């Protein structure tokens, strides 16, 4: 007698990655259940929470943080035991952490896939850029990415389109802000080029989303949904027939007798629990939570590689007053990038890097600064206008290398459901530190180009909220968690997807690459179940 299953496929996690995988499976006629630890919150409630909170610069601020579904807002939930404190920002709700992001949807470049063979550092991927290219196209058209077809994003191949593209972006790039164009013209004589950041902030209406009109609040929450978030694909997946169960925290992945995964067990905040079976399982629960769940379940970890090779993007920032008014804050909160050291020989010695230009309305920070300086009276309004018009800030992301000693593990504390917290161990190496001097060198030129007055140019590294390597993909079952198809080496019907798959971090935001891998994995699964 044939086995009975609750679904063809169970997807754990309704973020951008899980929802895209679920939607692809549903489109190919599979029955799918999505399990989400958080709940669904309508956009208007998030906007209202943002507007009614004094913590406007807390990107987690408008979002729920529950004892049974903790986010990084609970500091005890994310525990650092290494030498470098990783500040994590992640959410738990339908749609996941892309509710609060800058919409940066870059592709990796071919050399990112072969760091070891090209530069002698890090690891090679088990697939090439060419293998992933058609899936990048699919991901860009699913999400909706606005970008410039003909641009060199490597910083090393002027005049070429790099990485190579088989198809144009679904939408043209947004126009540069006046500030970005002014900056671009100022640094061009120094040999710097500013390229458009491929962005999920739409440049026109796309799949029911409106075009961006510059509300300048991409994070913590876009008020109109011009900026993509995973909730769009969670909704598409449900419309396509997927069953979405919220308030369902998976606490165990259950192995069957034949080495396959048999079922998953989840708990809800009301005390209820359930076990669901499927032919195939997709774990897409976030770069920290996915490895944690695997370790908790003693699944896929015989080689002790789960949770290791944690790679963040480290970085620096600079802010300064330009001599002339440039007016930041007009348009989305970020546009443009400069790739001085993304690719090339320096990468064998130190991290590649991406500089990006912030474009947020600076009034609150400017006002706080002026009040601290004792400015009062009618002078205050004049100074707010003067300084806000001239404020510029850039931030830089450094790539990091995979090191098994850097890891995420279950901690000793427990949440309301009895599940462990997240314990991080991370230490910065000389490869990343080696990028500090060249980065500061660029900053000094940027400030000089604008005849600027520096406000902050710190050498203290901070991390960005990008997590790679924790469910690492590889060519060998000895030193990786999943194979080239995102399939667990140990359990043939378990696929693990997310930014944790990435064997190199590159210098760009990893979301698009994770979505491309997830759609590709879903396509593989659809052929099997």
């Amino acid at each position: 007698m044939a086995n009975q299953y609750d679904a063809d496929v169970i997807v754990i996690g309704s973020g951008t990655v899980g929802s895209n995988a679920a939607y692809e499976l549903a489109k190919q006629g599979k029955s799918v259940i999505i399990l989400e630890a958080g709940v669904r919150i309508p956009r208007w409630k998030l906007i209202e929470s943002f507007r009614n909170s004094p913590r406007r610069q807390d990107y987690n601020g408008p979002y729920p943080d529950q004892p049974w579904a903790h986010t990084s807002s609970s500091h005890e939930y994310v525990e650092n035991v290494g030498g470098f404190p990783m500040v994590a920002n992640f959410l738990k709700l339908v749609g996941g952490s892309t509710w609060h992001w800058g919409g940066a949807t870059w592709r990796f470049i071919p050399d990112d896939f072969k760091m070891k063979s090209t530069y002698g550092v890090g690891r090679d991927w088990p697939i090439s850029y060419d293998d992933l290219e058609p899936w990048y196209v699919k991901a860009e058209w699913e999400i909706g990415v606005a970008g410039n077809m003909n641009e060199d994003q490597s910083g090393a191949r002027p005049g070429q389109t790099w990485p190579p593209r088989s198809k144009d972006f679904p939408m043209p790039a947004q126009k540069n802000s006046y500030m970005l164009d002014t900056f671009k013209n100022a640094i061009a004589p120094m040999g710097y080029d500013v390229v458009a950041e491929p962005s999920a902030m739409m440049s026109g209406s796309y799949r029911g989303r409106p075009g961006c009109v510059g509300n300048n609040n991409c994070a913590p929450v876009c008020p109109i949904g011009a900026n993509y978030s995973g909730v769009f694909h969670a909704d598409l997946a449900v419309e396509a027939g997927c069953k979405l169960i919220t308030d369902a925290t998976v606490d165990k992945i259950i192995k069957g007798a034949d080495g396959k995964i048999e079922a998953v067990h989840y708990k809800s905040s009301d005390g209820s629990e359930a076990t669901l079976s499927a032919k195939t399982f997709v774990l897409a629960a976030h770069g920290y939570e996915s490895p944690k769940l695997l370790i908790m379940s003693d699944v896929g970890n015989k080689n002790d590689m789960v949770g290791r090779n944690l790679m963040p993007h480290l970085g620096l920032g600079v802010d300064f007053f330009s001599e002339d008014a440039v007016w930041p804050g007009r348009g989305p909160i970020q546009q443009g990038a400069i790739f001085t050291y993304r690719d090339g020989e320096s990468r064998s010695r130190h991290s590649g890097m991406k500089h990006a230009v912030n474009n947020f309305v600076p009034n609150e920070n400017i006002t706080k600064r002026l009040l601290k300086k004792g400015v009062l009276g009618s002078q205050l309004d004049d100074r707010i206008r003067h300084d806000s018009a001239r404020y510029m800030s850039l931030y830089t992301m450094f790539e990091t290398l995979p090191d098994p000693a850097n890891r995420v593990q279950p901690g000793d504390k427990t949440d309301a459901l009895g599940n462990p917290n997240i314990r991080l161990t991370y230490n910065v190496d000389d490869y990343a530190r080696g990028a500090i001097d060249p980065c500061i060198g660029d900053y000094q030129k940027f400030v000089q180009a604008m005849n600027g007055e520096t406000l902050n140019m710190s050498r203290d590294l901070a991390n960005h909220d990008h997590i790679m390597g924790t469910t690492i993909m590889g060519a060998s079952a000895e030193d990786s968690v999943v194979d080239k198809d995102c399939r667990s080496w140990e359990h043939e019907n378990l696929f693990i997807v997310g930014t944790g798959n990435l064997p190199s971090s590159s210098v760009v935001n990893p979301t698009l690459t994770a979505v491309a891998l997830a759609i590709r994995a879903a396509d593989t699964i659809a052929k099997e179940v």
Partner: protein
Amino acid sequence: MSDIPNRPSGTGAHIPAGVPDRPAAARGGFRRRDFLLTSAMTGLAVSLGATPGLAATAGADAEGFGTISAFVTGQATLNPALVQRAFTQLVALDGGFADKLSALQTAIKDSGADSIDAFLATAPAQDLRDTMTTITAVWYLGYTGTPDPSQEKDDAKFVTYRDALMWGPTSDATPIPTYSQHNQNYWAKPPASIAKD
């Protein structure tokens, strides 16, 4: 505070009912006390300089706080609901705030200054400047206390978002984040004021 120039026009439809930073009158919930306070402050704004004695009628209570707040920030009126909220929160934050407010009231009255700039020109003592900075921060930033997103909790409490005075000086050039004021790609051009900026 409907006379604040930075209020974007035509955005009312986007605001969920009951958002607490809207003036009471705009919500339709008009209260007698609001009316009295608004009237009193409107009158004050006109006559504070001409009749300095009026400042003496203000106590170290919410009403007095509203009067001083209007003087310190150079505003004709401030939303009475927000005045009450801010005062309650400031007193809770600093048990000595009422005394500091009294001291500032007395100093302003004694100076005979008819505007904040005139008062600042009298070189007030640092403790008075500190009190003015506290008051100015509330109205410009729209909260009491100090938000610290690096911590789980802090002492910051909400007063207003859209009516925070920090938006006013740039209202022709940049949006109050989340409130649409412009069309797509408007940002490709500088604001009309750029030659003077």
